[in-house]
């Protein structure tokens, strides 16, 4: 069915080199910048809080070294010889974290320019940097905009002080409009705000008020995430100890559905479970993830995908640094998906999208007919009123959205 399985692959993750990968065009680039001023209590992304300007400067050097490993591979004579062309021409770039905006201005500038020097970024249509509301200045925004960054994403999370306190977020709700204002003045036309709902103590009314305030800021994009208690985060521990109480499931679902109705009325349409955008303003970088595109990630804990090969960079800064210094890819977890596993994964991702799984797109990506391989699931789930199935698409219904993980699980399990 799919030829990838025939390509010899490294047995252990640390042996992965760009040389092993099949031919691919990589159009999405992610850079993980693991520095934070303070570690928020719900966050389980990799970040560290005690960093020196020096370490951050060295960090940029190493990111660029990591980029060198890739650009070198892309142009290696061996690959050219056997026509396994590895092209890295980012259409989208995303700096996430951590708090990328914590990088000192010269370091940020060097990072952006360094990447532009190593990869052909002329076709880049979307360059996003995550910012903390309290961390950016007008000059900083202007610098980023001038260098080619065209989208900023602000982690607002909530406009209510008690809710921010529950998350251990250290910014003033008023920082958000101020920062957005600065971004606009610096020339950014695409802005996003991240919000979190189902924060302990939050009512449906309070959440509705948060949405109203967000809309008033007139951003092109909104991400609304339900608070997830990830194991071993402080907030999960507090919940276990009974110091905080999670919002009831039914209320959380009401919040989700309210968000969809309310934002849609305001011109921000849901396009994924947690993401809303004005027409034409969806985050293309995220779409690349959800369409199963190829992407590579630089920086500790970054996750990459190239033609069914998935890997994750070492999660700790020190380990990542050591790998880079020895000129090897800092790979920690590597797997090569079977064609059916890859199909299941793609179904899982596509079904979270508002437009759902397009049968023709699925066929084109996997070589498989979703209607055939998932016939029983589609049958059962449409009958149960959880999925809609048209000639072209399979997509969740209102009630299906409530259990989309379980639905996705059906596709994953049975593809093994």
């Amino acid at each position, binding site marked *: 069915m799919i030829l990838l399985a025939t390509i010899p692959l490294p047995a252990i993750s640390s042996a992965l080199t760009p040389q092993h990968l099949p031919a691919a065009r990589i159009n999405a680039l992610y850079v993980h910048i693991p520095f934070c001023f303070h570690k928020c209590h719900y966050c389980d992304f990799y970040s560290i809080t005690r960093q020196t300007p020096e370490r951050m400067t060295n960090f940029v050097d190493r990111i660029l070294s990591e980029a060198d490993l890739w650009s070198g591979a892309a142009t290696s004579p061996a690959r050219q010889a056997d026509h396994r062309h590895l092209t890295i021409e980012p259409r989208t770039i995303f700096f996430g974290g951590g708090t990328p905006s914590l990088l000192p201005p010269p370091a940020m500038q060097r990072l952006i320019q360094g990447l532009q020097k190593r990869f052909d970024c002329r076709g880049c249509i979307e360059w996003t940097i995550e910012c903390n509301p309290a961390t950016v200045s007008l000059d900083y925004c202007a610098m980023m905009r001038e260098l080619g960054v065209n989208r900023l994403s602000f982690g607002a999370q909530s406009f209510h002080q008690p809710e921010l306190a529950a998350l251990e977020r250290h910014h003033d709700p008023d920082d958000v409009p101020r920062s957005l204002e600065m971004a606009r003045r610096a020339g950014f036309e695409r802005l996003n705000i991240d919000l979190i709902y189902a924060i302990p103590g939050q009512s449906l009314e309070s959440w509705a008020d948060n949405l109203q305030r967000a809309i008033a800021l007139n951003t092109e994009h909104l991400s609304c995430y339900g608070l997830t208690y990830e194991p071993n985060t402080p907030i999960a521990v507090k919940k276990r100890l009974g110091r905080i109480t999670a919002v009831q*499931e*039914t209320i959380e679902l009401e919040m989700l559905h309210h968000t969809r109705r309310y934002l849609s009325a305001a011109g921000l349409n849901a396009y994924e*479970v947690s993401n809303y955008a004005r027409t034409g303003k969806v985050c293309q970088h995220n779409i690349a993830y959800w369409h199963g595109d190829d992407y590579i990630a630089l920086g500790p804990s970054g996750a990459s995908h190239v033609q069914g090969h998935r890997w*994750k960079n070492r999660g700790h800064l020190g380990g990542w640094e050591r790998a880079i210094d020895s000129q090897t890819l800092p790979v920690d977890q590597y797997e090569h998906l079977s064609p059916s596993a890859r199909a299941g*994964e793609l179904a899982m991702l596509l079904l979270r999208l508002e437009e759902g799984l397009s049968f023709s797109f699925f066929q084109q990506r996997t070589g498989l007919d979703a209607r055939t391989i998932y016939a029983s699931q589609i049958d*059962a789930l449409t009958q149960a009123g959880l999925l809609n199935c048209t000639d072209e698409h399979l997509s969740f219904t209102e009630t299906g959205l409530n259990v989309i993980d379980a639905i996705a*699980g*059906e596709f994953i399990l049975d593809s093994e």
Partner: protein
Amino acid sequence: MQIRNFSIVAHIDHGKSTLSDRLLMRAGAITEREFKNQILDDMDLERERGITIKASAVTVLHTHTPAGGKPEQYMLNFIDTPGHVDFHYEVQKALQACEGAILVVDSTQGVQAQTVANAYAAIDVGLEIIPVINKIDLPGAQPERVAEELEQVLGFAAEECIFVSAKTGQGVDELIGQLCEKLPPPRGNPDAPARALIFDSIYDDYRGVIVYCRVVDGQLVKGQKIRLMGNGREYQITDLGKLMPRPTRVEQIGTGEVGYLVAAIKNLHDVRIGDTVTDALTPAAEALPGYKPIQQMVFCDFYPSGKTQYDELRDAMDRLQLNDSSFTFAPESSDALGFGVRCGFLGLLHMEIIQERLEREFNIEVVQTAPTVTYEIALTGGESIRIDSPSELPNLTHVLEIREPFIMMNLILPADSVGALMKLCEERRGVYRKTEYIGPTRVILQYEMPLAEVIYDFYDKLKSATKGYGTMDYDLLGFRAGDLVKMDILVNGDKVDALSLIVHRDKAEARGRKLLVRLKKEIDRHLFEIPLQAAIGGKIIARETIKSVGKNVTAKCYGGDVTRKRKLLEKQKEGKKRMKRIGSVDIPQEAFMAILESED
């Protein structure tokens, strides 16, 4: 030489094995070290459970000097008996091979249900009984009181009882003396055609079936051509021997003696306990009385579970049957659980033993369905059939009546728990027979009950209601008609065969409701609502609903880390692999045990 053939009978744990070994040691057959290893029980399992599953026979030569008399040689043949009610028939045959029995009672526990049952079994076959009160070395021993109980319940004179400690050896010499003096010698005609009673058989990988028998008339000789009178099969004796207690070859086994024969018999099924061995050339006119084919009364299915495959299960069952021909099995398949085997057992304990041996000796994991009893179905055409699974019940238009096995249940209880047990027996459709006091604090309670009401958890209920002091024993009375119906269970509209059961009509609704409540707990919520129904014929008599999953959506940003998201979903679904899908519902294997535990 004088011959004495005897058995020891006792309630479980009253010290039968220890006393057996002590007797052997006193008579010089085994050493102190062997004594500790209890050589009569050769299966680990028996030792651990403290019960003897297979009988065997040991011969000891002993010199006894009666008071004021001359020393005389005695051949003491000790025939071991299985200690549980499930092996009633085997016990009876072993006893039939003897002239006497030692009845052992624990001096701290007193008379128990099986003490009575075993004593009656021995009396029934006309044995001379020597009552022995054991464990008199223990601090809580009350031998005099127990002797009085014996007198009251079984009519032995209290002063006849011998006080013994098998552990220390106290009283054992006196017991051996009584064996020699009190038990009658075997009677039989040495000149008549050979007749030997088969009381046990085991399978040996190298020699085939080894048959234990008691020669009643004539003798068995090496090289002799023999015939098994039950099935007419003929063999030639290649080997004769006695356990002394090590296997010792002999040239012949004479009238009244006990030993084993080997005759190149390949299949344990060809040798039936209770059958008669005779000479093939000059056969006896009549077989010894009392031969009955084995009747399995309790049935259940084993389905492979975990890593076990069906083929492995089958092979293991085949192997087990080599040395236990008293259970049956046949291939079975169920929509719910796939391929498995339907097994028949003598009783509940027998079922447990087989399941444990499967796990222990063969590393086989099984799911066991709820046990059922055999039903006798009277058909409108006048004939009657027996079924051992609710799914075999013919269409009701052809059924005249359904009959179920009834038992006579003997319970021995502390007096203060009689009320609780009467209530339990009444709930289980018991018919009261009698109450009898044995001593001031203990009571024999007798009920006629349907076997089906006993096989679930009656024993556990008995133990908890009596703080462990209550004991039970039963005898099969036969089949009786009842207002019995087949109850089907429907999950999401699909009938689940493995959950069907035959119940009394009056109890069907309550039983069905409890079962559904249990099922509801076992089956996870699905993406859709699942109705659970209990039905008799087409009529729904109870209903429950499993609500659909409310929320299962993670609205979280995982960035490009798709693997993580996928693994989370995989983990969420992990348990499903151990489930059986019926229609579109995943049912965990535990749910199939729900019928077992629905009787709260």
